[in-house]
């Protein structure tokens, strides 16, 4: 029999595809069902944040940082504001620091809930998505109490906060902590330890720690590979050194260290750690005025600053150069999703097409963060 003629096939995935979490386009080179190469094509959501920042005054940039990674607006604001405060050399009141940490951790919970829910959706389980969004709605309700907005807040200001928290916020946050613990147990039983889900994700897309470190991968994606690296512990910013919490890493409880399941479960465990931080912080908020350190005019002297923080997606950094005017001379954002997506080709090779969906979901990318 004559030999079968085979040839590679190019398959276009996205930009309109339900599992690309936005408008990412992947060009897959296939050998039958096996993926030979994955080439991400970016830029469908390029909103030129960095160029915008040059035309705005320092406080005006904050709403644009919200829209960068729209699932964790608070963490984006926090990182940017910390960089500006470093440039100005101002100290903020202790009360502000506490509230900022609580907000950042609540946002981490909301972001991880979306990650878990949509990952379940990617693997074909619709129910966890509905449960996760129900719980996320409760977190957003808290943000609404303090600043009126659900998603994009402009809450953290240079030197302070736009509004003080209310007693209602404190009681509702305590209720949420009590409510979420059993809910997370339920979601874990429903999805994380579900046999079908484990079959889909375990031993898929194994990311070795040395590859992850070389590529600059950070956040839960890096910790899924067993690397104990969390900026809240390794390089504490704000007042994170005051709180007692653990760094969650992938341990190979199911599958092997560095696979999709381990990357996923880090997020589920981190919600518990965030709850612990909130519990410790909510009871010890000192008294004070949240706007006492807000400068009338933000006009730093010429210089530069870089601040990196642990956002729910990974290491988020802002590099700001000031020329002494009211506008920043240059703002560079180091976004975690952009660095994390860079390893997708390396770890998807040799897997099936359907696994690419799971690998992509396990990175928890946000296109606003990749394209900026």
């Amino acid at each position, binding site marked *: 029999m004559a030999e079968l003629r085979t040839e590679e096939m190019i398959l276009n995935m996205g*930009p309109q595809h339900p599992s690309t979490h936005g408008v990412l386009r992947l060009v897959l080179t296939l050998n039958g069902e096996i993926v030979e190469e994955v080439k991400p094509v970016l830029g469908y959501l*390029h909103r030129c944040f960095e160029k915008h920042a040059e035309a705005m005054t320092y406080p005006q940039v904050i709403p*644009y940082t919200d*829209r960068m990674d729209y699932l964790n607006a608070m963490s984006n604001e926090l990182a940017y504001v910390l960089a500006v405060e470093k440039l100005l050399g101002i100290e903020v009141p202790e009360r502000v620091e506490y509230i900022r940490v609580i907000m950042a951790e609540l946002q981490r919970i909301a972001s991880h809930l979306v990650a878990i829910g949509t990952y379940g959706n990617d693997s074909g389980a619709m129910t966890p998505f*509905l449960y996760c*969004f*129900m719980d996320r*709605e409760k977190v957003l309700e808290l943000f609404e109490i303090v600043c009126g907005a659900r*998603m*994009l807040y402009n809450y953290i200001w240079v030197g302070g906060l736009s509004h003080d928290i209310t007693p209602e916020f404190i009681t509702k946050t305590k209720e949420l902590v009590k409510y979420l613990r059993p809910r997370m147990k339920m979601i874990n039983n429903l999805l994380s330890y579900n046999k079908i889900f484990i079959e889909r994700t375990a031993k898929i897309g194994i990311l070795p720690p040395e590859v992850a470190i070389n590529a600059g991968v950070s956040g839960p994606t890096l910790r899924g590979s067993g690397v104990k690296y969390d900026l809240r512990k390794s390089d504490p910013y704000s007042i994170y050194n005051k709180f007692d919490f653990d760094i969650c890493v992938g341990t190979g409880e199911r599958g092997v260290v560095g696979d999709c399941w381990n990357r996923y479960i880090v997020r589920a465990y981190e919600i518990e750690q965030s709850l612990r931080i909130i519990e410790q912080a909510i009871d010890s908020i000192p008294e004070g005025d949240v706007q006492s350190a807000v400068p009338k005019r933000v006009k730093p002297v010429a210089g530069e600053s870089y601040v990196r923080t642990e956002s729910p997606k990974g290491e988020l950094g802002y590099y700001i150069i000031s020329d002494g005017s009211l506008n920043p001379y240059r703002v560079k954002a180091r976004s975690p999703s952009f660095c994390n997506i860079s390893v997708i080709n390396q770890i998807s090779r040799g897997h099936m097409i359907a696994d690419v969906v799971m690998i992509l979901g396990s990175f928890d990318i946000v296109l606003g963060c990749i394209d900026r």
Partner: protein
Amino acid sequence: MGILNKLDNSVEQFESGNIIITSMDKLLNWSRLSSMWQMFFGLACCAIEMMATSASHYDLDRFGIIPRPSPRHVDIILISGTVTLKMATRIKRLYDEMPAPKYILSMGSCANCGGPYWEHGYHVLKGIDRIIPVDVYVPGCPPRPEALLEGLIKLQERIRNQSLAKHIA
């Protein structure tokens, strides 16, 4: 019978409800507005609010709105977010692939007019209505789920008043 409650007093019943007489317009409009299948397609921040609206808390299913992944299956498309020039060509193509009758809901300031990116955004399309016709605009950055629901109800009203004989703008 559900249909009799939805179609107003122009319905006549005969033979103890086994035969009904109504106008073609009313029947078509009723069926179109009660199952507006939506394209599973998000662009930016607004897409998260769109997802939140279709999830359990706000529940789009009760309007008969179900997300479908292919443009061939859908009746409405929600333009939810910033439309960059690179994406605009793709949206035009997706719109062309949809079977008629098709409806467009522009969600959020970016899709309406460029939003926060209108001034310095050399890369942003200043309003989706420059390339495809829009039926309903929902303002907000991002609009709250309640606002999106209101927009969808407005779209239903629009469909209810359609006519086969004359075009209503």
